[in-house]
């Protein structure tokens, strides 16, 4: 079976990325298991976003290989649609949903259920969106229907919709790009619960954050990125929150400057 023969949802080998003379990512080797939640932690400018954008088909790396579920990615044809086909879905902090659009539209944007000539099957889209809202992410917001616009949702609920959408489209790997920035504690709690559902659903996840507190509870493993390099790969069994925190602080304060 595919699941047994390929233990990784994702594998990056020697990924390098230059923006002109700027060495944004160097020698990135990263694996994510099929049902693993990986916390990708790093300060601002560490290269987290660049890494994600390569993964999701927005940027092309300068060199290196990417395997998704055992399949090697051909960079020449790799783009956002292709990443979706490969089962990689991304939930961005603030740009996953069109605010003035109805929930059902947001659900299917980019891959609508269409009839002939590209006309949208509204009834079917609404039905499925409704179903996913209730079952997959347990959405019971008062007065919120699939016809509501996103602007009526709270920050946490929005991330819930984006995660629910990713799960519906059978994402093998969901990338959460700083999903809790600018959210209140109560809303962060909601997002954490959505991440638990990803784990329960048997899927993989890369949770990107600059704060370890957010990811510690849900992640199985922590990968620390600093100035374009992976400097730490810690399993949760082996470290406490305090350990990881101290590890990160040592980089933040430049105590472990690798480039003297």
């Amino acid at each position, binding site marked *: 079976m595919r699941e047994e023969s390929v233990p990784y949802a994702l594998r990056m080998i020697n990924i390098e990325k230059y923006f002109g003379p700027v060495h944004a990512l160097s020698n990135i080797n990263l694996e994510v298991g099929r049902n693993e939640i990986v916390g990708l932690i790093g300060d601002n400018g560490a290269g987290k976003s660049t890494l994600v954008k390569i993964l*999701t088909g*927005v940027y092309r790396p300068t060199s290196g290989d990417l395997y998704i579920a055992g399949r090697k990615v051909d960079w020449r044809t790799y783009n*956002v*649609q292709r990443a*979706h086909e490969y089962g990689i879905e*991304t939930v*961005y902090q603030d*740009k*996953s*949903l*069109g*605010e*003035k*659009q109805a929930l059902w*539209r947001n659900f299917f*944007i*980019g*891959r*609508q259920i*269409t009839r002939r*000539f*590209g*006309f*949208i099957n*509204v009834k079917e889209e609404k039905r499925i969106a409704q179903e996913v809202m209730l079952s997959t992410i347990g959405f019971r917001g008062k007065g919120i229907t699939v016809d509501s*616009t996103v602007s009526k949702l709270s920050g946490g609920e929005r991330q819930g919709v984006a995660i629910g959408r990713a799960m519906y489209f059978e994402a093998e790997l969901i990338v959460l790009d700083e999903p809790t920035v600018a959210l209140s504690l109560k809303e962060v709690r909601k997002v954490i619960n959505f991440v638990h559902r990803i784990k329960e659903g048997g899927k993989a996840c890369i949770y990107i954050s600059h704060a370890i507190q957010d990811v510690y509870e849900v992640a199985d493993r922590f990968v620390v990125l600093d100035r374009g390099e992976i400097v730490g790969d810690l399993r949760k069994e082996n470290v406490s929150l305090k350990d990881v925190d101290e590890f990160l602080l040592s980089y933040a304060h430049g105590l472990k400057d690798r480039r003297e």
Partner: protein
Amino acid sequence: MKKLRSFIRFLGKIEGLPVAVVFVLLIVVFIITAPDVFLKWRIYMSFLQTVAPPLILGLGLTFVITAGEIDLSFPAVVAFSGYVFTWAFRTFSEGIDGSLAALLALGLALLAGGMVGYINGILVARVGVPSIMATLAAQFFWYGVTVLLAGGLQAALKTIEENAVHQILTGRIYGIIPNPERGRIGIPTQALWALALAVFLWFILNRHKFGEAVMFIGDNPNVARVMGINVEATRIQLFTMMGVIAAFAGVILTMEMRVFYPTQGQGMLLPVMAAVFIGGTSIAGGVGSIVGTFFGSYIIGSLEAGVVATGISGFWVQLVQGVVMGASVVLNTVLGRGDLMVLSERLRHWGVPMRSSGFTQEALPPEHGD
């Protein structure tokens, strides 16, 4: 009370209802103040004829504004396509059948409009020129081209009435409207074409992938991009479509007048934009209403004739236009999109900055923010 609430909520969901109500009220006012004119069919037939070109333009512009862009070049396309049509018809009709010549001329004119729009699209989407600049330049350029090609002269379409294309696009349908008076009254077919186009474009905007892409791009182009929409291609298609639609309006206008003027279309820019905004299409992008634009165009188109017909001085026309436009836009803003309940809440806060609105929240200093 509960029934009333759900009824109000139901009303709020009807697209373009506020503008439709304004339009009906306007007609009622005109009927009361000028019964001689507004209780007869003729004035309405006149509206159907004159409103058709700006309505067609407004329908296209609704898409452009929904996408968060603007097109200022459509008046020039009305002139340029009118020239292309006239030139082609006069050239072809010497050799071939008039209807075929008109059909070919129509095709060429639409092509010319599409080309203007495509160039706009390339400038905006590929080169990255803001659409207001690109289309402003295009507006001057294509009027310039038209004047040069036409030698600054108008040109008559003498034999155009004899052919089928003219009959189909800008003919009159007689026999439907009862007419006890002297003279025949026919329904201008261009009004039907404009209506058909409105229905078609409603489906494209609200039920087609293209329309959804337009709304998401207007809402937030970054979201559209990460969700796999080809933002650049959609923008180019959008401007091309606007060009073709503007050319169609130009041909209708030229055919109806049976004369091409190098300055035709001038003066249409602001009324057409006003019609779109009255209809509730958001200047911020992301939300557009075809139904709103439809009634908005008829409001704008009937104001001048209506005010003059009431017998008050023509000097009042612009003032009344301003009041009606202002009232419509305020009504739209206050009602929000599909939520009449907001109105009572807003009225209670009249004059007091509201916390519930994102806009005022940002405008307030932080100490008032909570």
